């Protein structure tokens, strides 16, 4: 085989290792057997029906949705403020501050989880959904800042000045010019942080009190082999949901790039 064929072979192997396990989820979710193993027995929607009938699952799904929505809104708001400030103004310690905001990107989540747990308990607060939101905002904000920074940096400052010069008020300028141009970035930032929060396990595991999130619930159910196929069904649902959200986020990011007339410089997808 010549080098280019080797390279193709390598890519094929790489993709199989990356995605084959995820593809097993839907396969066993529709398999009519309580044992997760080949050969497949037959086709069934039964495991999805089991999901539908499990009350505890609904509660944890609801928790996860509340956390993910709150995280998306809070992290995007904070990200918008930080991105706007760093794109538009020069202030002392700017690089250091922006650096610290981005650090959670590379910080192991287990460290974030353990240290937040210690701090919250030391301060005398109880663990609740909000302690998880706190942790998730911490790890999602860097993503929001990264997405929104490019949205604000690509916004020509003279556009806002032009609107003001043409007789609009500052408030109207914000809604007519600034918002429409950064809106795709804001939507994309919310979708990404929603997705990250929904999937996140380690921080949620440490900071969940009596109310588990969906990933924590799944982990707890793994002790019962007979529940495994229904978890496969649940995994399938989450997989589809995550991919849809990410694709939507990417769509908005590209639309934003196209609208402001800049070259597409790559993204998360």
């Amino acid at each position: 085989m010549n080098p280019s064929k080797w390279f193709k072979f390598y890519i094929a192997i790489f993709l199989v290792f990356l995605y084959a396990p995820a593809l097993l989820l839907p396969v066993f979710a529709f398999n009519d057997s309580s044992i997760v193993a080949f050969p497949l027995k037959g086709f069934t929607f039964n495991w999805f029906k089991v999901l539908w009938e499990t009350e505890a699952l609904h509660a944890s799904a609801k928790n996860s949705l509340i956390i993910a929505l709150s995280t998306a809104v809070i992290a995007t708001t904070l990200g918008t403020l930080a991105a706007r400030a760093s794109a538009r103004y020069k202030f002392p310690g700017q690089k250091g501050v922006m650096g610290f905001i981005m650090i959670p990107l590379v910080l192991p989540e287990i460290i974030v989880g353990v240290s937040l747990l210690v701090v919250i308990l030391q301060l005398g607060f109880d663990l609740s959904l909000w302690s998880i939101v706190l942790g998730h905002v911490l790890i999602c904000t860097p993503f929001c800042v990264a997405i929104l920074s490019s949205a604000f940096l690509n916004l020509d400052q003279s556009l806002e000045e032009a609107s003001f010069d043409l007789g609009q008020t500052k408030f109207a300028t914000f809604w007519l010019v600034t918002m429409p141009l950064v809106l795709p970035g804001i939507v994309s930032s919310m979708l990404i942080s929603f997705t990250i929060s929904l999937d996140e396990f380690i921080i949620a595991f440490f900071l969940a009190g009596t109310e588990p999130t969906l990933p924590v619930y799944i982990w707890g159910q793994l002790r019962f082999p007979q529940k495994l196929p229904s978890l496969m069904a649940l995994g399938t649902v989450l997989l589809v949901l995550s991919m849809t959200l990410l694709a939507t986020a990417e769509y908005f990011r590209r639309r934003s790039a196209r609208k402001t007339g800049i070259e597409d410089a790559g993204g998360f997808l």
Partner: protein
Amino acid sequence: MTEPIIRLSGIDKFYGDFQALYDVNAEIQKGEFFSLLGPSGCGKTTLLRTIAGFEDVSKGTVEIAGQSMEDVPANKRPTNMVFQSYAIFPHMTVAENVAYGLKARKMPKDQIATEVSAALKMVGLAGYGDRASHALSGGQRQRVALARALVLKPKVLLLDEPLSALDKKMREQMQSELRHLQRAVGITFILVTHDQEEALTMSDRIAVMFDGRIGQLASPQELYRRPVNRKVAEFIGVMNFLDVSYTAGANGAFDCDINGLGQVTVPAEQAPGGVDASVTAGVRPEMLTILSGENTRTEREAAGTVSDVYYFGDMTYYDVKLDGVDKPVTISMRNTAGRTVLGRDDRARVGWGAESVLLLK
């Protein structure tokens, strides 16, 4: 003289400790094409932005049409601006861009439509209303920006280096279009530029700025022929400088001995900035002639050696080392019928006169 449309009195502008403008005074007349010319960082854009209302003045006043603009924000001033980047709203069509200011004024919709199509027609973009603005070329963006500002019929149109982003050919075309447009609408234009040729060809009057100060405010001809100092003379066109010694003569004239040229009496108006010990003689390249055999009519004559020749077809530029001077002077000659073009190291007879010389501080 009628009341000026803009009066700038004693304007200082500080950014922290840095002073961007020093005591700027100017009056700009109604219907005038006025340029702020200077190298980058000279404060010309800052001055334009104080007129627009994007920058406060630290001291002094900006008056527009007799009214002080103190505490009047940019959106309430009778000025509109064409930005260097054009600042066309990318999420709107061409027509929406042009209609933007009219909508802010709450003009009825059908009237907006009429005004917008008239404005687009005026800048040569009739029928472009529905185009997406991010798909336009540089020249088209420029026209949209002009239409968007002019449709509001401002008392003064401010243009911040509007031609700098265009290629040479497009720039020359837009220069003459801007001039025609200005005459047609009769609105005062204030143009910021660092391109002296652009300022000379387009403006009624020019303020040349250096380091936050107006160096000279005059018509293009006066700036070129009677610059008040060395700095202005160097910035506008090409100027040769020669050492000179002088004594005061009759009628305020100066009896001069110019290194390399010789003795001459220079009338007072050819020392527009006055004289002192630092004075030098300035001579424009076209004010000197290379004398060839048949053409010897000249007031005075000097001699030198050609050190370089730049042949441009219609013109030839010579670098000539005048006898006794190390630094060559530039002399431009039209290549009229029968004129011989000298080569390097040829001896040259240089014709000049009292009119050729300026005394500059």
